[in-house]
């Protein structure tokens, strides 16, 4: 009798074990690698806010599956930690999809693992050119540096500026930005008069700005890491009277990011930048997004490109899962998302069917004061911009 009960129990256990994977398959685990601590924790916070906001608006269930987030901190530009986080996510937490990746180094360090484990990887911010080649299951939702920089060159060429100086931080991203700007400028018949590279850490801009002032160009293109460097450069530029002399400052959105634009203050007025997202973008979708964001996170100053990219990353993920009816395996969902178009708060975006990279409208914006707030006001656009460096 006891023996029979034992057998029954054992059979039940086996039956449960067999059906158990079906329970597990009802949830889809999304592993997020974000900088939640260290100097870039604000980036991670913005992105996490975007993700949470999307899930609040659209629910945590898609195609009958519950979405479960597992957040890992990579502490900033620390590729070995990002890699270990991804290995843990795959092996220990058994996630189905990887997302996040604020820095190129993190994304590239994680790519071989994602490729081997056949996990889709939704890159929400890492911006170096051509990184989607590192894994066939990598999809980029944010932006690429050449993609947002080249239009600045094209715009400068179209404006007919005769002499243009470039100033970039002496790091990989700065070099890429310089090349992309010059490429854009040449395509519209412009020419660069001189290029300066400044140290990335604690730079003193005074001598550089003075040199530019002495050269009296029509415009200056600057790429500096967002944050202190960008703020100091704009202030120095203004204090030395370059703006007053009519020298136009051009840059990418990094120069006038939503998070630093207030700190530059009046010195930043009139700076022309190219970028894919401005909080002041005029569309119903964006207005709703900004309103919902500020309602949920009143302590954050406002959403920037990071929260939008993270928001869109989740939107793309949900679309993909709906298309595959909940199949989250890397090859299937990547295939389903190739060529996918969605309407984002930043405007229309598309995932390139060939290289899984982001295609989007790049706007030319000018810093103005709108309702007492500094904002990047869009006045010109380059639709369907791609990363031309990657295309070559």
């Amino acid at each position: 009798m006891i023996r029979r009960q034992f057998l029954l129990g054992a059979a039940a256990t086996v039956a449960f074990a067999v059906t158990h994977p079906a329970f597990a398959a009802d949830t889809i685990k999304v592993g997020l690698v974000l900088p939640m601590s260290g100097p870039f924790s604000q980036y991670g916070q913005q992105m996490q806010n975007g993700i949470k906001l999307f899930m609040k608006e659209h629910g945590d269930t898609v195609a009958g599956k519950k979405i479960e987030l597992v957040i890992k901190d990579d502490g900033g530009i620390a590729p070995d930690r990002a890699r270990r986080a991804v290995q843990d996510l795959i092996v220990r937490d058994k996630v189905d999809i990887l997302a996040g990746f604020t820095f190129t180094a993190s994304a590239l360090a994680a790519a071989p693992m994602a490729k081997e484990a056949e996990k889709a990887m939704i890159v929400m911010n890492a911006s170096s050119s051509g990184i989607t080649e590192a894994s066939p299951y990598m999809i980029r939702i944010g932006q690429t540096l050449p993609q947002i920089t080249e239009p600045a060159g094209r715009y400068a060429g179209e404006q007919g500026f005769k002499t243009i100086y470039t100033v970039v931080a002496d790091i990989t991203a700065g070099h890429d930005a310089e090349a992309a700007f010059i490429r854009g400028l040449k395509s519209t018949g412009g020419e660069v008069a001189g290029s300066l590279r400044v140290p990335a850490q604690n730079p003193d801009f005074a001598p550089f700005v003075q040199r530019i002032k002495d050269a009296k160009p029509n415009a200056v293109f600057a790429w500096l890491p967002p944050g202190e460097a960008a703020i100091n450069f704009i202030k120095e530029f203004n204090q030395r009277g370059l703006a007053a002399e009519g020298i136009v400052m051009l840059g990418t959105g990094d120069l006038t990011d939503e998070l630093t634009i207030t700190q530059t203050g009046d010195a930043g007025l009139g700076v022309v930048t190219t970028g894919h997202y401005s909080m002041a973008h005029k569309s119903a979708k964006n207005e709703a997004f900004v309103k919902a964001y500020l309602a949920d996170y009143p302590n954050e100053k406002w959403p920037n490109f990071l929260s939008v990219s993270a928001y869109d990353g989740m939107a793309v993920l949900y679309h993909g899962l709906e298309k595959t009816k909940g199949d989250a395996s890397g090859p299937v969902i990547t295939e389903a998302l190739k060529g996918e178009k969605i309407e984002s708060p930043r405007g229309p975006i598309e995932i390139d069917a060939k290289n899984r990279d982001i295609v989007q409208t790049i706007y030319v914006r000018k810093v103005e004061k709108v309702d007492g707030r500094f904002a990047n006001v869009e006045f010109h656009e380059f639709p369907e911009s791609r990363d031309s460096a990657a295309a070559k």
Partner: protein
Amino acid sequence: MTIVSGLPHSSRPLASRSGSSRMNHRSVAVDRLASPRPRLFEAVVWLLPAVAYFVFPDNLALGVSIMTYAVAVLALDLVLGYAGIVSLGHAAFFGIGAYAAGLLAANGWREPLTGLLLAGAASLMIGFFASFLVVRGKDLTRLMVTLGIGLVVYELANRLSSITGGMDGLSGFEVSPIFGVFAFDLYGKTAWWYVYGVSLVVFIFLRFVVSSPFGLSLRAIREGVNRMPALGASVNSRLRIAFTISAGVAGIAGGLLAQTTQFVGIDSLSVPRAAEFLVMLVLGGTGRLYGALAGTAIFMIAHDYLADIDPVYWEFWMGLLLMAVVLFARGGIVGALFNLVPSLKARFGRAAQ
């Protein structure tokens, strides 16, 4: 007197002088000098990771990281704990090894073992040249010089982005299977045994170095640098040798990182990384090799655990832990343990007899 055990050795002359009886102290010292053979507890310590492999099969990635960094921290222990040179530039050698291994693999030299040796050799060589600068001057000067080396190498790697990949890091290289048989796998099993083997070999090597007359002379230099020339020992050349060996070992650690992660980030040779090595070493205890191992393991496990619980404020808890260790466990965690053993013996030893 030719072979000296590398095991903890009271580095406080004052404390030993105040010991109860001179005879007793002497016999302890003779005990320590007696045998180069590994003690039982050492075998146990080295079995721990192997046990962890089977007990925590899901944490192999962390295990690989711990052992990789432990090799670098061991290298730092040789110069800091034994030779008394405070170095803030050890990440430079770690990074040089990592880039050397990464670049070799990227350019077709995919065999891991020779790649690792070449990585070690590269940073050994650069360490040799750097050692001439480092041994000049005293503590603060050395700190500055090593810091300078770290900054220079970092900036070089940043500038030469066409070779190193700059901020984006060096990626897209693959490493052949070990001995042509064991391929590096997703779960990190091969990487785990590879790093375990290499770190054991490095440890045994360092154990011989520190227990050799050379190792003893390093400690003598640390304790009384002015007396050493009177004994006919050249202080500078010994320090140079120690620094060079240490740089080579740090390079091997870097090589392990590159080979097991298939990626080299520029952060691997940053000064914060060097400071992290220093923290791990001080946490575990300097000048006893096992301190380096324990410090690295505890630091990284605590880091992993805390960052999992609280991804945003884990650094706060980490800081508390470090302060607690520094304030309450003199000589680091391993140092405190070793101090505990004699006092326990003194208390319970008689009763047991």
